[in-house]
């Protein structure tokens, strides 16, 4: 049986070209990029070339690109880097939202234990944080606002440009955007929206290798390093450069950004097709808006109220379809989705959500097949439904 991988929000199949690049670089350029000898210098040149390439793909300057080990590290570095910078004479204040990825949400909780004041903003029924709530939450000691660009469970796009604009009135407040799910799916206006100070990305979400990511950092912004070490990345991130990963990421990013408009079109078409198919199955409810203005194209979120989602996941898997319950990072806990709860959905619906996310290798036939297998699965599970209370 042919299997279908529909979990692109969790991780994507890498570009074949990138797989080759990473392999070749592992074989040929194993020298440490900070070594003095020629081999090291060659490696260093490749890292810098990758930095230029990443910068170019994102409309940033090369000196604004920091390489990290991925989205989680980028988010940690952004939050802790800003909030720990300059010592802890005054307790600083952080504003973030209730729908952030755990690498921001749990970091905020951890920072609270370190004495950082934290405000966690709600979202409305459409899953968006309100810019006026952000403004209202600002205190004299607010150092950082962190809002994700695209939500990882629902694909809902946050009003980051409006927030950036209103934050212009508060020059002491830095603005971090977690763009992990946005890169290559929605336009990033780093060059024109100057109010965004930090922006996180992760290579394996855009068909690059795992274990590598980036943090864009506006010139002049001080970050306290999470990892002290050999002074790499301008002293802001110690550790030997992951050369194959870094170059592989720069290549994947170029490929993904160059093709973004076409891919967006394709993915939106698949999204519409899938939503129409879900509508045909009365047991399922849609957790995302249809309006394409509000969302990123790669994901659909739905619930089967009265059915534990992992049952659905494993049933679908028997039919060769791989999807997620809420986010991959929280799926092992059986708690209801924090994101859907925040959107005002009931516990039953929030506990039974399924995330289907697709990518470049899918076409209408694949989504048709997915819909067919989804229908079949629901039919099999129907007799086992718990009563809808």
């Amino acid at each position, binding site marked *: 049986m042919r299997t279908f991988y529909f979990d692109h929000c969790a991780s994507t199949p890498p570009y074949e070209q990138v797989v080759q*690049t990473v392999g070749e670089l592992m074989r040929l350029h194993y020298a440490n990029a900070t070594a003095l000898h020629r081999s090291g210098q060659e490696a260093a040149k490749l890292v810098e070339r990758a930095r230029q390439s990443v910068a170019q793909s994102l409309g940033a300057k090369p000196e604004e690109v920091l390489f990290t080990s991925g989205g989680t590290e980028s988010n940690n570095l952004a939050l802790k880097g800003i909030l720990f910078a300059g010592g802890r004479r005054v307790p600083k204040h952080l504003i973030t939202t209730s729908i952030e990825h755990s690498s921001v949400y749990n970091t905020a909780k951890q920072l609270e234990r370190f004495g950082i004041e934290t405000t966690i903003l709600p979202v409305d029924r459409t899953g968006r944080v309100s810019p006026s709530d952000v403004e209202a939450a600002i205190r004299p000691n607010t150092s950082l606002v962190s809002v994700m660009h695209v939500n990882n469970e629902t694909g809902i796009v946050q009003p980051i440009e409006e927030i950036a604009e209103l934050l212009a009135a508060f020059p002491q407040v830095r603005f971090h955007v977690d763009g992990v799910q946005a890169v290559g799916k929605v336009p990033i206006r780093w060059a024109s929206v100057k109010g965004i100070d930090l922006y996180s990305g992760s290579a394996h979400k855009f068909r690059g290798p795992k274990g590598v990511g980036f943090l864009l950092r506006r010139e002049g912004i001080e970050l306290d390093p999470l990892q002290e070490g050999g002074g790499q990345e301008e002293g802001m991130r110690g550790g030997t450069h992951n050369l194959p990963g870094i*170059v592989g990421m*720069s290549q994947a990013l170029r490929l993904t950004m160059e093709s973004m408009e076409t891919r967006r079109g394709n993915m939106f078409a698949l999204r519409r097709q899938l939503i129409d198919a879900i509508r045909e199955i009365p047991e399922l409810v849609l957790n995302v808006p249809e309006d394409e203005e509000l969302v990123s194209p790669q994901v659909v979120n739905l619930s089967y109220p009265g059915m534990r989602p992992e049952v659905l996941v494993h049933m679908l898997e028997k039919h060769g379809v791989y999807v997620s319950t809420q986010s991959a990072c929280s799926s092992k806990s059986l708690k209801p989705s924090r994101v859907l709860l925040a959107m005002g959905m009931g516990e039953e619906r929030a506990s039974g959500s399924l995330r289907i996310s697709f990518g470049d290798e899918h076409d209408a036939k694949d989504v048709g097949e997915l819909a067919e297998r989804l229908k079949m699965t629901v039919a099999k599970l129907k007799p086992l439904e718990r009563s809808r209370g």
Partner: protein
Amino acid sequence: MSYELILVRYGELTLKGRNRKKFEDLMFLKLKQALRSFEAIGYEKNFGRVYVQLNGESYDEVAAKLREIFGLHSFSPVLRATHDLEDIRAKALQLMRAERPVPRTFKVTVKRAWKEYPHDSQEMNHLVGAHVLRNSPELKVDVRQPDVELKVDIQPQGVFLYSTMIPGAGGFPLGMNGKAMLMLSGGIDSPVAGWMAMRKGLEIEAVHFHSYPFTSEQATEKVITLTQKLAHYGGKIKLHLVPFTDLQTRMAQSGHDHLIITFMRRTMLRIAEKLAERSGALAIVTGDSLGQVASQTLSSMNVIGRTISIPLLRPLVMMDKQDIIRYAEKIGTYETSILPFEDCCTLFVPKSPATNPNLRIVEKAEAEWGEELERMIDEAVQGTETIVMTPNGRLVRKKEAEAAADRWF
């Protein structure tokens, strides 16, 4: 005197049809590129001519640039007058007085493109000519062979006057005739050959062979400087630096001492041909001048030239050394060329190099090296370092290894 316009005439007027159009389009592009740094300048196209509007930019600086553009036939600084006769007369006199050398004879030619102008061409000829004569007692009119022809062009928007015709570089706009590789040794001849190739519309990429550590870094620097000087005419020129040490030391041990130069020249051409293929160039340009040295006898040219199949262009082949030097001085490469750093051709030179090499012996010896020679040639191509020179200096220093890294990005 402050000119308002420059009338620019294109060369190669014999071109017809589509070629003509291509020529004019490219010419206009090259003209704009050459004058890019003058921000105020405007252009007005008019039947194979272009009026450059100075808009306050310095005529002398613009003229200096125009003189160097390949494909330009000539240009003239233009004064602009109103339709008022007195203004036209005053400007005419001004132009004549600025002529150097001081002319003894002149004539006036009036073109009345604006037919509503009250005086016809004949009348205007007299009205303007008489005024100039009255105010310049030493001048005479000569309608057949005047020293200066003062042209008056009457247009609806004003009157344009010009007299001087400054010759341009002629030839074709750069790139019109494709691309060639230039063998650049560092001597006097090869930069001149390069300039001549460029004048004829060939884009060039320079190839230089170095035998470091036997040749010095300065020898290479000298060639870099020469390329930079040529880039003055071409905007940007690639220079390929080919490592030649291994090949040269191998040939020095060939046992055919008097043929070393022949072997070397043949090998260099083969490497240049491979680089040409990679760059999409269709010819190789050399500074060979018939009979100048042992490798430039007709017999040597025959044996050396046979090793490649793309055309070998030798712009200097029939020129005398003195004339070549004059060109080198004119294009500004002479001073650099005579700097005393050895290039690889002057190394290991035998006491009596062959002036009449035997093709059969040469080919036999090369066949004996066989695969080894092929391998060494490939290695030299692989190890070639390419830099891009602009008139202001080095643009990129790109190693073959770096170019190979392109596939990872």
